[in-house]
């Protein structure tokens, strides 16, 4: 088991944890370091601020999913002590040979038993999936309808709050008014509509924090909420006829507040097996209004050519405990890829386990074969999504250009055209965070010809231009990332 800096970075929650771990080693805080004879279990005793040192360990018995443990009170996993232990190994500090402690052996056994149980559970679910959703009893249906009625009442309450806000005027909302609205929204707890409740909280947060006179975003949020209210109402009214059936085609369940479990996605066959994904772009978006960071990765399936999103939300307050995602250059092999219901062009996906393989020219050839070459169709699909106020305003599409030209260089303004002459304007947009579109100027002529680009669209209402930011360029030999 070789521990490298890259490995440490891949398991660390964030850069602070890495640095803290390194510092522990540099300051000589580890009193003892040990490794078992099979070289799969390392442990250390690390001096903390208290009298008793902390005992930490890293168990690589299953190399694909190592287990980290520590006796410190930190909720962060792996904590800085484990990070330090890994660094000590990477820095080739001296480790004594020692057997695996009995308690760890016991825990390994427990884990094996749990893994077997999980496998049995998954198998059971697969069987259930083969049969489809289970038949529900009459009592269950009655309770479900009651819940829907409660939700509908909640939705009406949301609508009333919106109407009150708009009647009084957003400009007249002072801190006291916002607080009273927040209290009303808190009261929505009882109505089983956490999705709408979150959106309301976000709107009120926006009104509270932003005094810059920029009203468009706030008004847009109100319109989105009202659209959600109307759609939810229509959906739930219809659902009363068959309350056991979940909508698996659109985002509506999730927007109302349903949190899809992987088991449910399995039951409803919302998955693909043995999928190879190649990441085309990765960025981190800061959403100050929602008080969160979002790690977002755009991956293309080498089977279907669909461009999926992998999303990780990290609220500011809990960021310390949630692992940051990072970009990857490798192709990800996913035994089972779960796909969340969506109308949007880029559904969210998730998986439980994966392996990697190196990206090869063969992979690139496959990826490029999926690029859309008819820009009229691309724009039609994009505008279709933009019409729907409930889904992402920034769809990503993978396209192939017949020509790519600069109108203003250095990341200013470019134009891509297809073979029929249809054009797409390319320019950076603020959604994509760090952007390096100016590197388009440094492409060689060979790279520009027949370039395949991942585009992230944005409709700017103020200047009336529908444009796209280029997130990456895929050539025959490599992926050039521009974010």
């Amino acid at each position, binding site marked *: 088991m070789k521990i490298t800096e890259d490995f440490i970075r891949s398991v660390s929650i964030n850069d602070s944890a890495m640095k803290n771990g390194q510092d522990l080693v540099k300051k000589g805080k580890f009193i003892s370091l040990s490794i078992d004879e099979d070289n799969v279990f390392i442990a250390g005793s690390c001096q903390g601020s208290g009298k008793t040192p902390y005992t930490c360990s890293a168990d690589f018995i299953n190399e694909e999913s190592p287990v980290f443990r520590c006796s410190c009170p930190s909720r962060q996993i792996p904590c800085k002590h484990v990070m330090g232990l890994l660094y000590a190994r990477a820095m080739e500090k001296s480790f004594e040979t020692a057997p695996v402690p009995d308690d760890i052996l016991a825990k390994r056994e427990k884990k094996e038993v749990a893994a077997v149980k999980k496998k049995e559970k998954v198998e059971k679910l697969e069987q259930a999936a083969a049969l489809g959703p289970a038949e529900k009893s009459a009592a269950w249906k009655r309770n479900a309808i009651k819940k829907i009625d409660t939700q509908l009442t909640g939705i009406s309450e949301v609508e009333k709050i919106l109407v009150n*806000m708009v009647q009084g*005027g957003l400009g007249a909302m002072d801190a006291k008014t916002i607080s009273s609205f927040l209290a009303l929204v808190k009261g929505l707890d009882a109505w089983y509509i956490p999705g709408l409740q979150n959106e309301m909280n976000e709107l009120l947060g926006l009104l509270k924090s932003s005094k810059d006179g920029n009203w468009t975003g706030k008004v847009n949020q109100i319109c989105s909420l009202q659209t959600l209210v109307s759609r939810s109402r229509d959906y739930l009214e219809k659902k009363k006829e068959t309350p056991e059936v979940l909508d698996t085609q659109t985002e509506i369940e999730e927007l109302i507040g349903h949190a899809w479990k992987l088991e449910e996605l399995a039951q409803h066959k919302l998955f693909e097996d043995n999928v190879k994904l190649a990441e085309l772009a990765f960025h981190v978006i800061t959403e100050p209004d929602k008080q969160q960071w979002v790690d977002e990765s755009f991956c293309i399936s080498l089977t279907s050519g669909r461009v999926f999103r992998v999303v990780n939300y990290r609220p500011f307050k809990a960021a310390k405990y949630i692992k940051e995602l990072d*970009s990857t250059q490798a192709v990800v092999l996913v035994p089972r890829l779960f796909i969340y219901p969506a109308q949007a062009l880029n559904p969210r996906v998730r998986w439980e386990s994966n392996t990697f393989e190196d990206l090869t020219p063969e992979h690139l050839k496959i990826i490029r074969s999926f690029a859309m070459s008819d820009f009229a169709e691309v724009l039609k699909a994009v505008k279709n999504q933009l019409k729907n106020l409930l889904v992402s305003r920034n769809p990503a599409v993978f396209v192939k250009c017949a020509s790519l030209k600069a*109108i203003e*260089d250095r990341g200013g303004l470019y134009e891509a055209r297809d073979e029929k002459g249809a054009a797409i304007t390319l320019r950076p947009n603020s959604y994509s965070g760090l952007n390096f579109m100016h590197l388009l100027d*440094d492409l060689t002529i060979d790279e*520009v010809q027949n370039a395949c680009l991942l585009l992230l669209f944005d409709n700017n209402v103020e200047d009336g231009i529908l444009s796209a930011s280029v997130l990456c360029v895929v050539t025959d030999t490599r992926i050039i990332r521009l974010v």
Partner: protein
Amino acid sequence: MGLPVLFEIDQELTRLFVAGSRLSTGDAGVRKYIPAMEKLGERVPVFKKLASLMKELTESKPEESASKLIETRCLLLAVISTQGENASGPNLDSWPQGQIAMSDTTISSRELAKIIEALTTSGSGRLEIVKSAHERHLFNDPRTHRALITGLGDKFSELSDYISAQILPTCGEILKPHLERDMTYDGGAPEAKRLRALHRIDPLGMVDKIKEIMISGSVAMKEEAARLLGNHPECGSFLLDFMNDKKKEVREAVMASLISMNNKDGIDKILEMLNTKKAGQVTNPIINGNSPYLVIRLIEMARNAAELIESNNADKSVADNFYNLVTYMENKNSADIADFLITCLDSGTVKKASRVLSEKDDKKQTEKHQLELTVFNIIHYIGLRKDYIWNYFLNHFDEMKSKKWKPDTIAAHAFEIGIEKLGPEEFFDTFIDSGIYDKIAGITSGLFQNTFRIYSENPVPFSRRFASYFLEARRSDIYLTLATLYPDDKETLKKVIKVFKDTIKSDYYRSYVILSYLGRNNHPDYKDLFEFYKEKSPYKYYLEELETYLPENRG
């Protein structure tokens, strides 16, 4: 019809959201757009629907207005979202510009964000991040390049210098167009660094641009350009025209370059100015510069003055001139200079010149009495004529013991040479006991360390009496060296700590060096001394390192 009207309607609706929907009834701002929308609606149904909603809005009762307003705005937003058009403009010629394929974009996103933040923001720890990234060759990734160029202008000069000297040259040709692109001729220090980086990447290719900058650049740019042209001897005659630039920095840079490229015309012109009112303009370049022709000319000029002095035909100005020429000979490391000066010493020229200088009532006489010592210094530091200095020392030893002469420089040189020749103990017996070393200040800690090669693999062993003698020698910076050699000597350590406390505000580097030594050697009072340093020292740069020596932080 394009988007502008829809955007105008949107602005009106937003106004009502802000002011309150109750004001929608009869609102003129919305009403004025209804006819236009109805007209459009004849061809496009959605505009007809929009017109209808706008009409209902302006005719609504206050209690219905909010839902009407929201409904209207939702439809408008859905329409606007699909109305986006392409931007237009003529395509740029000569695009794309990549001549060679750029490097791969392989850094992970988190690492990239960290590097860019280090290069484009302020705060501590950034240099470490940048150095670590450079050691791992992360700056091959072209996404880092723009931030690197931004870093050239960083206020923290260590960082910008590191980027300029270490990183940019390794990025290669691919960075050249980026560096050139935004460079302005009228920039300041950051632009000058950019120019320097460009020159490192493509020295010959940049010559023409550098010449342009000499003609029309800012002072900082011209100064850098002049300095860079010093690497191009073929540009000597071009540079000559700038010897009389209005700005001192530019003039000095031009002269320094002419000297370094051994340009004879330039050097002649510079030396000619020594006899004019412009002498002050050329002294720095001559003192700091070094080239074979400069040495030849300096010796020639000094020889002429020496001949006049020897023939007793010298007045003050000749003696002054001789003295100045001798000082210009410092830092030239030339055996010819050493030999010339030895000739002047042996022939008595130096003594005669000193006498002429000291006869005059001039406040600067004190310096010029040091002419002989200056000559010795030059000979000694050239390092090629040690025997001459040693013999001189021996021949004048009795004279030095007298109280008339303060033999700082010669005795210090002799200390180093004598210990090498005789060995420490014989030297001590013969010369230290004489007492001349009691009164000189020339035995510095540096000289002591160099003479005994204290920190090398082959130190020169010496007896404890050296330490005892020099502890009383009133050079406080020698204490630390002795403390290193005799760590158990309490007296030495006490004196070291006293020096630490006395210099904590005036000499932060010395106090750091001493405290670091005490920490590394587990001095029992280290914690208190560290707290003292933390409180009293105005300079906190070393705190993090010094903290690691505290007992609780030691492994």
